[in-house]
């Protein structure tokens, strides 16, 4: 069980349904090429497959085709922002697990992300938080 108060990031849903399989697929939706690359580098040993999108407008189609376990969603993108894309994904796939991944961090944004259906919120400044989160997920899956 995660305790949000102890962590820099927030998990909105404590009872995240964890997959029993060991293979983990992650969809990265971010307009920054270097951001996508760094996320992949940090999570390389923790995920088996990655799929990348450079805009929220492509996220739903990518989700449908890739069916990931997790989605890492940037907030601001050129055509469609992450919040709208998250709503679209959650509308089509209510069990989708979307983590907002953004450089902006305040209570309003966290609340908006939660209302859109995201299950977590990670500041972009510290990628270690993200890898720690996925490591904990792996430990829970192995139990």
């Amino acid at each position, binding site marked *: 069980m995660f305790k949000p108060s102890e962590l820099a990031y927030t998990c909105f849903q404590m009872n995240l349904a964890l997959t029993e399989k060991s293979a983990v697929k992650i969809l990265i939706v971010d307009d*920054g*090429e*270097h*951001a996508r*690359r*760094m996320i992949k*580098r*940090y999570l*390389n*040993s923790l995920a088996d497959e990655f799929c990348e999108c450079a805009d929220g407008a492509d996220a739903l189609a990518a989700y449908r085709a890739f069916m990931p376990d997790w989605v890492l969603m940037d907030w*601001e993108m050129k055509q469609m922002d992450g919040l709208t894309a998250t709503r679209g994904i959650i509308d089509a796939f209510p069990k989708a697990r979307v983590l907002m991944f953004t*450089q902006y961090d305040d209570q309003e944004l966290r609340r908006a992300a939660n209302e859109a259906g995201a299950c977590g919120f990670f500041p*972009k*400044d510290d990628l*270690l938080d993200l*890898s*720690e989160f996925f490591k904990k997920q792996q430990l829970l899956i192995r139990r």
Partner: protein
Amino acid sequence: MGTIFVYALPLSVCASLSMAQCRVKSSAKLKRERVDRIMDAGANTEEFRQEYLNYLTELEDSRFFKTKFYLRNRINCY
């Protein structure tokens, strides 16, 4: 008394040396653990450093432009 001192001195030197070695080992281990949290053991450090710099630059650039965009919107309101 003198005999005790003759034996005690080398022993204390040995003990302090082994303690220093342990400290170096644990410090190296801690450093390795810290690095392992960030990157794979087999990864190229320089390549990683460069990619991380690129990432931070991208983050800073987007912050700068988005702040400018935000300010421009505020100015246009008046």
